[in-house]
């Protein structure tokens, strides 16, 4: 694939605008709170789009298209089961505690609700996790641009890192959030034409159905038996593993996304942020998954498109589905827009990680354990330096990923061990006043050990089984879902058990942090379109309709 002058012009224009937004936001940064939390001043339509854009990284755009080609329309479960219900839950039930507690971060909420050690465990694991996520995103960008355009790996990652550093250093979280909105629109407008053109060329939905196995174009119909669907998973594993543990664990507790809602200008806006975001989130499968299915169908037609294959006898190269479609359906001009959108998706993921990292490092690690009671200007300086350090460490991680792919797999696995049980901790912390700090800490550790043990005792596609393989899953996805279920269940059980054996906090200390001791704001005087429950009900109706249509 080669680019023309017009394509480079679009890319340069985009870089100019994202840096321009950074300069525009620089004037608003006077305190560490301005830089790290946006001082709770961002309008709801912006926080809502940033809420999903921060998650629109490399894995989302390239990965979901690849999954569409590999697993078919079942991939939409990652949105309609694995994201939207959790977004409704955090908006309706959890946001009053996050926002109302005045915590500046998720780990800080854990300190207020439980104790210092639970906060330290979460802050440290989250800080490391965000750096590695950012590095993996950068590595994927450098690798993809090298393969597709022949660009130098180092030049690609240094250019993207410099741009992200530029606007996050200047305007902090507000700049990152504002740019995420621009990136969101660019991703939608840059990839929608590809979805339309590819699906039409493949004969529309009916044409694709004719050319593919029935399980590839349904969401629920073939979930009764793992052997009948390409994901190798059954209904319980899908709903409990993806739809409950993994989904709620990510959307309700990961500070990367929660931070966007917490930047909103009021409690009402913070609650509406994930609810408003749920609307575009429901539509994303048509933009990012549908092209993958179309690529598979086109590969079986005499259409002039051949599905990309790995070198040698490696089978289909699903990760290249998106870029090969772009090369065939986009002329020079729109090709530049598509590639800029791809760059934007990498950068929004990277900036999301960097801004979450600098907040957690500055408030939860530096201010808590390294230097307490310093003037605010000092913390603002530390936040800016942490942004530089975060980007530099992400670059180092990208190179680590390039040299030791297996190490990255292992680290990502360890992070999934840490993340899976976290939702049990929050669920008990927010809705059961009897849960204690010792219970939460022990539960988190036990849940992590349970996840690691499950991985060590099971095999899937050659992965796991390092203790003694006692069960084989049909796919790594099924293994991940069940690992998450076990980790969550163990964390839930151990937290309850240890909590019952230890002394709880006084109720007075839990006001604003726990259900039953917190006044949930009334929205009776709000118009219907601003009421969280009404918005959630509309989303549920749309969600049921989508699942029924694509049953």
């Amino acid at each position: 694939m080669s680019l023309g002058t017009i394509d480079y012009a679009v890319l340069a224009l985009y870089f100019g605008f994202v840096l321009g937004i950074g300069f525009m936001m620089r004037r608003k940064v006077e305190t560490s709170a301005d830089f790290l939390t946006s001082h709770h001043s961002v309008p709801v339509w912006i926080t809502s789009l940033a809420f999903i854009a921060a998650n629109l990284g490399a894995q989302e755009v390239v990965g979901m298209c690849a999954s569409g080609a590999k697993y078919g329309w079942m991939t939409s479960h990652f949105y309609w089961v694995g994201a939207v219900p959790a977004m409704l839950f955090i908006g309706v039930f959890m946001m009053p505690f996050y926002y109302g507690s005045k915590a500046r971060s998720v780990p800080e909420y854990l300190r207020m609700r439980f104790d210092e050690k639970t906060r330290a465990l979460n802050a440290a694991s989250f800080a490391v996790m965000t750096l590695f996520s950012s590095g993996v995103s950068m590595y994927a960008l450098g690798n993809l641009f090298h393969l597709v355009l022949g660009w130098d790996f180092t030049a690609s990652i240094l250019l993207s890192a410099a741009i992200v550093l530029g606007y996050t250093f200047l305007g902090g979280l507000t700049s990152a959030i504002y740019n995420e909105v621009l990136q969101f629109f660019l991703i939608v407008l840059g990839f929608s034409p590809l979805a339309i053109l590819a699906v039409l060329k493949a004969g529309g939905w009916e044409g694709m159905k004719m050319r593919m196995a029935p399980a590839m174009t349904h969401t629920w119909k073939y979930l009764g038996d793992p052997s009948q669907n390409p994901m190798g998973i059954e209904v319980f594993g899908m709903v409990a593993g993806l739809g409950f543990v993994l989904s709620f664990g990510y959307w309700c507790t990961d500070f990367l996304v929660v931070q966007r809602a917490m930047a909103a200008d009021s409690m009402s806006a913070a609650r509406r942020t994930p609810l408003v975001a749920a609307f575009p989130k429901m539509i994303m499968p048509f933009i990012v998954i549908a092209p993958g299915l179309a690529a598979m169908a086109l590969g079986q037609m005499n259409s002039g498109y051949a599905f990309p294959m790995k070198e040698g006898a490696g089978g289909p190269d699903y990760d290249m589905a998106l870029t090969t479609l772009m090369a065939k359906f986009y002329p020079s001009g729109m090709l530049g827009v598509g590639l800029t959108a791809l760059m934007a998706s990498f950068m929004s993921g990277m900036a999301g990680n960097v801004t979450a990292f600098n907040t957690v490092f500055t408030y939860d690690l530096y201010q808590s354990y390294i230097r307490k009671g310093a003037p605010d200007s000092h913390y603002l300086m530390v936040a800016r330096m942490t942004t530089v350090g975060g980007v530099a460490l992400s670059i180092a991680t990208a190179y680590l990923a390039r040299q030791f792919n297996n190490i990255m797999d292992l680290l990502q696995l360890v992070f999934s061990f840490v993340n899976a049980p976290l939702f049990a901790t929050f669920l008990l912390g927010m809705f059961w006043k009897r849960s204690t700090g010792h219970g939460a800490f022990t539960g988190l550790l036990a849940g992590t050990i349970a996840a690691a043990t499950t991985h060590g005792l099971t095999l899937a596609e050659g992965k796991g089984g390092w203790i003694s393989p006692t069960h084989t899953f049909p796919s790594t996805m099924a293994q991940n879902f069940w690992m998450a279920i076990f980790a969550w269940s163990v964390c839930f059980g151990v937290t309850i058990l240890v909590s019952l054996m230890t002394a709880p906090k006084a109720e007075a200390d839990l006001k604003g942090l726990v259900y039953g001791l917190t006044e949930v704001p009334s929205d009776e005087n709000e118009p219907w379109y601003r009421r969280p429950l009404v918005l959630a009900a509309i989303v549920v109706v749309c969600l049921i309709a989508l699942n029924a249509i694509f049953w």
Partner: protein
Amino acid sequence: MSDLRIPIAFFFGITGILLMTVTANRAALTDAPVNLYAGMAMLLFAGVMAWLARRPS
């Protein structure tokens, strides 16, 4: 200029105009004037953003 809709309108307006200057370019697998249609869509989107930004709140 802290209303985000204004820079968004400018960005997509300029991109739309750029695309409409290269409408003769064609892709391998479609005869549709992709740049023209996409450029028009982006200009329309830019117009909506500009209108929303100028609308009295």
